[in-house]
């Protein structure tokens, strides 16, 4: 989407008259990218669906606060990341377990998940990713799963390309080490 088209969409979203029509267009444009971003964090489909819907509702309620300082998708991505993390924190709190324990549980549940058909290698990769700090997980998933360029990741995370490369390199080294063990 060109910057002009994005500006037009934002204007429509912030208008009283065309908001619903524009909002539907926004969902169509970004639903899949946001879904996969959320899914890689929450791991299971039902949770990802809940979080995704909450993200769009939050966007709808707060669209007038968007000043256009960043790209629209970067703003959506940050909301989705925050929503996903708070969702997992609440989930851990409800079960009275730590974030690390919840991660282990989520990975373990993948084995019985009908919407996950990874083989042994893929499952081991999930385990390896879960051992990384969250920032490294994000960089790795954006690069490896979503195949984004460093420039795109840089826009999303507000981090320099150099720092992202270093982060990715560290993530890769840790995953390699985990897989060899």
């Amino acid at each position, binding site marked *: 989407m060109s910057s002009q088209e994005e500006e037009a969409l934002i204007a429509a979203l912030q208008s009283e008259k065309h908001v619903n029509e524009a909002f539907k267009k926004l969902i169509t444009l970004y639903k899949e990218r946001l879904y996969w971003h959320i899914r*890689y964090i929450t791991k299971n489909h039902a949770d990802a669906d809940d979080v995704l819907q909450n993200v769009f509702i939050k966007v709808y309620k707060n669209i007038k606060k968007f000043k256009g300082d960043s790209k629209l998708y970067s703003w959506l991505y940050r909301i989705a990341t925050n929503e996903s993390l708070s969702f997992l924190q609440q989930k851990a709190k409800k079960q009275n377990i730590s974030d690390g324990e919840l991660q282990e549980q989520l990975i373990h549940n993948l084995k019985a998940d009908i919407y996950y058909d990874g083989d042994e290698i893929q499952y081991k990769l999930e385990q390896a990713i879960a051992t990384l700090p969250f920032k490294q997980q994000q960089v790795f998933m954006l690069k490896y799963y979503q195949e984004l360029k460093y420039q795109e990741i840089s826009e999303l995370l507000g981090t320099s390309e150099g720092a992202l490369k270093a982060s990715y*390199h560290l993530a890769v080294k840790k995953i390699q080490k985990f897989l060899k063990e």
Partner: protein
Amino acid sequence: MKQKSPHTNRGYKVPDDYFANVESSFFDTIKNSDPKEHAILDHPNPSAYKVPDSYFEDLEDRILKRVPPTKTEVIPLFSRKKLIYTTISIAALFVLILSIYKQSNTANSDTINLIETAYLQDYIDNGELELSLFEVEDILLDQNIDISAIDSDALQEESLYQYLEDHIETEYILTE
């Protein structure tokens, strides 16, 4: 002339094309090491996550159903200022009515008291009451009025002696 990196001026160096090869080094390392690790790269789609069939097709409608309705501006029938004045006026009116009612109630009870103690006594003393004492008693009982509350001091002493002399035998009183 090769441009010097700003990071090399403190003596630190990195291998040539290090940053350019960070991505591929990961895959190369895995390919050259373990066949199991190698397998990760052979997956055409690295993600094993799936979604239900047609999940994305009706997502817009499901989300739009949850969107809160657009707020419509409500024009109040009464302005806030007007409402406050009205409330104060009603309260003042209520207080006024209550005080008048209380005052009138007090006046009525005073009048009744005055009738009981003065006018009614004269009225009865002058023999203008055509009811016997038993009839009065019946009326009082019908109205659930406590007879003991009747002020006995209001009776004249002479009348009382006269009543006792006419109705009660003196001997009986003396023996008791």
